[in-house]
């Protein structure tokens, strides 16, 4: 792939927490409209990669570019504001704001951070809640919703920022098997619409279905990456084979 036309580009990114090196040189390029799944064992640095892309975690060396933003050069939250507008994130633990209703959760940031018109944002928020099939729960507080419903509100909240990219961090890991499906359905629709998505996931079947490309990470490195058919059916690296042998 020609690197310059990539929307997101990571080059030799390293990150340490104290003495522990989590990322040992990650290079990755994601095109506009591409859906990339990152799989791998726990502690291999999957979630850290996502948090580096939107600047939640500063990196030690290497470079990260998202669109025109050079993430590795940004120091303050204020500098990162345009980046956060472009890149949304959905978390494993949903992290909805418990003191606000579902509708308010979706509306808050566009009104308060982006300064969009309230009425326009409310229309957008209701449309997004309808998209994730939660129109009737608009006035419910997060505590009154099931895990799957909360996660769908979180997806609507991320979409309300009108991002170019959404990062999904093990969004189904805290859900029970029945509700996993409703969340995955919502994500699949976004991928089909051509939104750029990077997904860290343990749902191998889902990764195989939606991803344009799958990356396998182990011990802070991307060991192998390629189309899902290649990774799942004919893995080249012995570590990928071992991991897939365990989870499939």
């Amino acid at each position, binding site marked *: 792939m020609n690197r310059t036309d990539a929307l997101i580009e990571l080059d030799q990114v390293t990150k340490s927490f104290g003495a522990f090196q989590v990322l040992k040189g990650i290079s990755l390029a994601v095109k506009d409209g591409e859906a990339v799944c990152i799989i791998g064992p726990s502690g291999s640095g999957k979630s850290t990669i996502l948090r580096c892309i939107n600047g939640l975690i500063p990196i030690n060396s290497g470079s990260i570019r998202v669109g025109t933003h050079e993430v590795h050069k940004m120091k303050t*939250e204020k500098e990162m504001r345009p980046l956060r507008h472009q890149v949304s994130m959905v978390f494993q*633990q949903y992290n909805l704001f418990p003191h606000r209703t579902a509708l308010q959760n979706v509306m808050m940031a566009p009104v*308060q951070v982006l300064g969009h018109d309230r009425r326009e944002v409310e229309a957008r928020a209701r449309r997004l809640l309808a998209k994730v099939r939660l129109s009737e729960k608009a006035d419910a507080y997060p505590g009154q919703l099931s895990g799957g419903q909360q996660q769908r509100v979180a997806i609507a909240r991320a979409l309300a920022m009108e991002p170019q990219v959404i990062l999904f961090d093990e969004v189904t890991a805290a859900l029970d098997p029945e509700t996993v499906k409703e969340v995955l359905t919502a994500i699949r629709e976004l991928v089909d619409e051509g939104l750029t998505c990077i997904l860290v996931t343990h749902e191998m079947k889902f990764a195989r279905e939606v991803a344009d490309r799958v990356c396998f990470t182990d011990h802070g490195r991307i060991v192998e990456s390629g189309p899902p058919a290649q990774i799942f059916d004919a893995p080249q690296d012995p570590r990928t084979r071992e991991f897939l042998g365990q989870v499939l």
Partner: protein
Amino acid sequence: MALIATYAGKKRTVQLGIALALVAWVALDATGGGGEGWARVWARLPILLTGNGSGWPLSGGFALNVFLSLCAMAMAALLGTALGFGMLAKNRLVRVPCFFVMNFLRNSPWLVLLFAMLYIIPFNVRLFGVSIAIPAFAKAVIGLALPTAANFAEIIRGAVQSIHSGQWEAARALGYMPMAIYGRIILPQALRRMIPGWMNLYALLMIATSLATVTGIQDVITTLNTLLAMENERVIVYFYITALFLFFAFCYPLALLARRMEQSVKGDSL
């Protein structure tokens, strides 16, 4: 569910038992000459409550304790808020001294702090050539506000830090600036957790106002001591029980309310 019901039932039975025992004791005691003691207390009750024999205007007594606790709490709220946010500051130069001050004040006996204020704060201050007298009441307010402020600050810090870190992460990911994260996301949630703690603290402060008698203000304890000098030794115990009950009647409802609020906050999700 059944277990909770029996627990609540048992609790109510015990409480009823204590109340009945108290009434029985008072009734039994009244037949043995206790009625006379209560009559003396009743005659002096206006002065204990208001510092004034006729009950009006308010000039001391228990009313002064209430006023003192309110003043000290207001001052503690101001100081404690500053101290609490100081302890949450990113800058070490702010945070470390705040922690030091908080620990020092929180681990000092309240009575010692009161005495310290009594002697550290001068009787007179000369400001621009004008001599201003500092009343004992002001010293009592400051002396009680200092330890209360330290505890107030700890309640703020504890509540803010009890908010799940995912809330910070989510807010940052949505582009909120640190101040906005505090104002719009962290504090609204933390405040719910602070209020019961503050109410408990206020009840403690109210009880501690009885210490302020050492500053010489005419609070309920000073008034009580003055009165007792003129009373028969046998009735002293009735006066002390009355003073005890005054504080109890004021603080117990607060403690109950605080506990109920704690229960309602407990279920908050992440």
